[in-house]
């Protein structure tokens, strides 16, 4: 009998979960954020149903501040795989000129959390897959794989449905929904090793390259387009950088690196002394901030 590695076990668990949702939930959607975790989740969905295409659409909630390379990658991937990719932008937010420079945490709420809620309501999705992992953050470590949300999309951490074996309860009433995290039990290392094993294409931003950056408040921020308001004296420098996580470019800190192969990235990640969320400007807040946002409907 062939060896069944821990990656095989994680893969089997994720595929089982994805199929359960496709079979039991009325109108599922898979959130696609273009990052490495999303790329892995998409790959798992393709494998779960092959030769059939995944029987649900994919949704990208676009804040309009994503790296340009991410959007190109998204469109290319959707076309290559022949999957339905929906995009949702909170147009109210765009009209109000909400941006990450002036509006801080309100920006995240309006362009991400509110936008996500609007998108789910608009299409009437009853279940949404997300690429969240329990090793990312403490409140995520406590969340079920099938995470129940009320009609206001809120999470109640004190009364989570018991989740026994792999008997997932997908029953909901009208207006309620479920967030499903098929890669809950994967670590950052597992993600990278799986990307390598399966030869999964990821956004080139993960690989080191000379990019125009400025250093701001201890973070290395890439100047991806001319909407970036340079402060007095700030001049973008070309530096070899890569990104450990991807989000909105003004809020994503890069790291100086020359790692431009998967092996080098894995090597660097494994010996890293910081957890991946330190590169997200939004997460460096008080303990419990993630739980608070999740209660309000954040993924």
């Amino acid at each position, binding site marked *: 009998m062939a060896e069944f590695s821990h990656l095989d076990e994680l893969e089997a668990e994720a595929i089982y979960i994805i199929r359960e949702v496709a079979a039991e939930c009325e109108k599922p959607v898979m959130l696609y954020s273009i990052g490495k975790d999303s790329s892995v989740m998409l790959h798992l969905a393709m494998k779960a149903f092959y030769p059939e295409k995944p029987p649900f659409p994919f949704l990208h909630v676009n804040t309009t501040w994503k790296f340009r390379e991410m959007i190109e990658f998204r469109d290319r991937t959707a076309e290559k795989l022949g999957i339905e990719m929906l995009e949702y932008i909170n147009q109210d937010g765009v009209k109000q000129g909400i941006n990450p420079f002036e509006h801080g945490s309100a920006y995240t709420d309006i362009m991400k959390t509110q936008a996500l809620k609007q998108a789910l309501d608009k299409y009437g999705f009853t279940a949404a897959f997300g690429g969240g992992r329990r090793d990312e953050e403490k409140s995520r470590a406590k969340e079920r794989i099938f995470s129940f949300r009320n009609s206001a999309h809120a999470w109640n951490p*004190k009364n989570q449905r018991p989740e026994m*074996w792999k008997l997932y309860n997908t029953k909901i009433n009208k207006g309620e929904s479920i967030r499903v995290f098929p890669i809950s039990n994967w670590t950052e290392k597992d993600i990278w090793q799986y990307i390598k094993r399966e030869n999964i294409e990821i956004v080139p931003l993960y690989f080191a390259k000379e990019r125009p950056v400025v250093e701001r408040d201890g973070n290395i921020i890439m100047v991806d387009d001319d909407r970036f308001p340079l402060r007095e004296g700030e001049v973008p420098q070309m530096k070899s950088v890569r990104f450990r996580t991807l989000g909105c470019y003004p809020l994503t800190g890069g790291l100086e690196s020359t790692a431009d192969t998967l092996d080098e990235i894995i090597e660097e990640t494994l010996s890293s002394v*910081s957890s991946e969320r330190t590169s997200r400007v939004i997460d460096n807040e008080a303990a419990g901030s993630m739980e608070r946002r999740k209660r309000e409907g954040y993924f």
Partner: protein
Amino acid sequence: MKGLLKFITCGSVDDGKSTLIGHILYDAKLLYTDQEKSLELDSKVGSRNGQIDYSLLLDGLMAEREQGITIDVAYRYFTTDNRSFIVADTPGHEEYTRNMAVGASFADLAVILVDASQGVLVQTRRHARICKLMGIRYFVFAVNKMDLVEYSQQRFDEILAQVQELTDELVLENIKVIPLSATEGDNVTSKSEKIKWYNDVTLLEYLENVDINSAIHEKGFYMPVQRVSRPDRTFRGFQGQVESGSISVGDIVTALPSNEKAKVKGILVAGRETDSAFAGQPVTVSLDREVDVSRGCVLEKDTDIAVYKKLEASLLWMDDEELAEGRDYLIKLGTKLIPGVVSKINYAVNINTGEHIQAECLAKNGIANCEILLSEAIAAGRFSEYKTLGELILIDRVTNMTSACGVVEQLSEKSGEESGRASFVYGDIQARGDIFEEFYYDVESYNVFKYQPVKSTYTVGDKIPVKGRSYSYPEDFDIIVLRDSVAVSVRNGKVAEIVVLGSYHYTNYPVVNGRGFEILADTSEKFEKFLEEYEAAENTSRSEFFGKWLRFDTYRKVIVK
């Protein structure tokens, strides 16, 4: 490198579960500096004695930090040079027993902490009982806080005897007892200098090396069907996870409940074509002929799995609303979701002592042995023999809450042979027909059920019982068995003709489906339309289709039994 080990830590309140795991992570340098820094910061603010409070690594919810207790399961991930681990840290308080059970159902091994100064407590017994109930086969009793009893071997031996008594009572397998101190780090990741009389492995060494697959030996191959994949007319695959044994192209498998056999034509493992697949793998299986298989069915080979309507199960109640005899729930077993009734509580079990108690209801965190009557026969197994087909949950039909989980202890009312037998046979043509089933209202459970006292096979020329207790068909009518694509004509109460559906012509006689429901078509055009819509409704809008075209009470009624 060994495969993934999923384990749970449990024990009574303040036994130091979270501290133990925190220590392993800290010791093994498995924390990132920012996590370590926030741990040191958090410890200064809220710790119980000013030192580093490892439990803060795990108690992630605000309410938990405020109250200083663990409420819900926390999952932690770490890898050593020898193995990858997922640990579920679970709450000790009795009111959060259900959350503890969540962790136990996920794990292959349990680390049960015992406070050396206290010995085996009521909570220890409760946790061991739940771990056993949820199917854990490996147990480590970590005798913690040895520093508080001066690392006394005599004290350890006393506790060893208590553990032995408990494992005998619960019939626990694969036991390891290790003396340690989570706060001091003795025998956690490195051998203790202070416990010289203990010459065995440390906790981490044991976890790195234990082989959790050696205790699993289920018979044959089985796979509950999660989903039928039908991307086009050329491909029909059954998706699911192999739960035991292995399967190869060319093997003959049996589909349950229909009991039809077919040969495996192709296997995809996680999307890749292969010749065979084994336990744990996600597969898509295609067969060499059309069989009656949908979600909730089971494909099996060389097992004793059969089809049952009545289960005896040990239930752990998890809902605020109590269980009362006779209430109906949705039951999920394997991939099957069906209505069922908890028809009887045989006895409740004292969760701490194991004593059997007479009971009529069951409250949250209670355990009871119950009888469950399912609305139809499904493939099921005893938990001890076919784990996955012996696990179930009960879902409240109003609130949708997962009200209970349970494991199947016994099975009865086997109906495996019956359902496979055709009702109508003529040459090669076979059709199932359940038009002679009796529908009845069960006064004990307040539910409608159906049964078929005698199952016979009829062929052309046979007289059929057109009248039963709950049905009355005309002397002349046609039966359209859609799932087998066969039509049966009855004239003067006798089978006049059995033909494939393609050769059947509607002739103005009343038509019923395979269950005896009237088909609302009174012209050839309407009948053609009915068939067309049936094809189109495949897999998706069945209930809408049936609602539009079928009528129950033309020839049938429900009787009181």
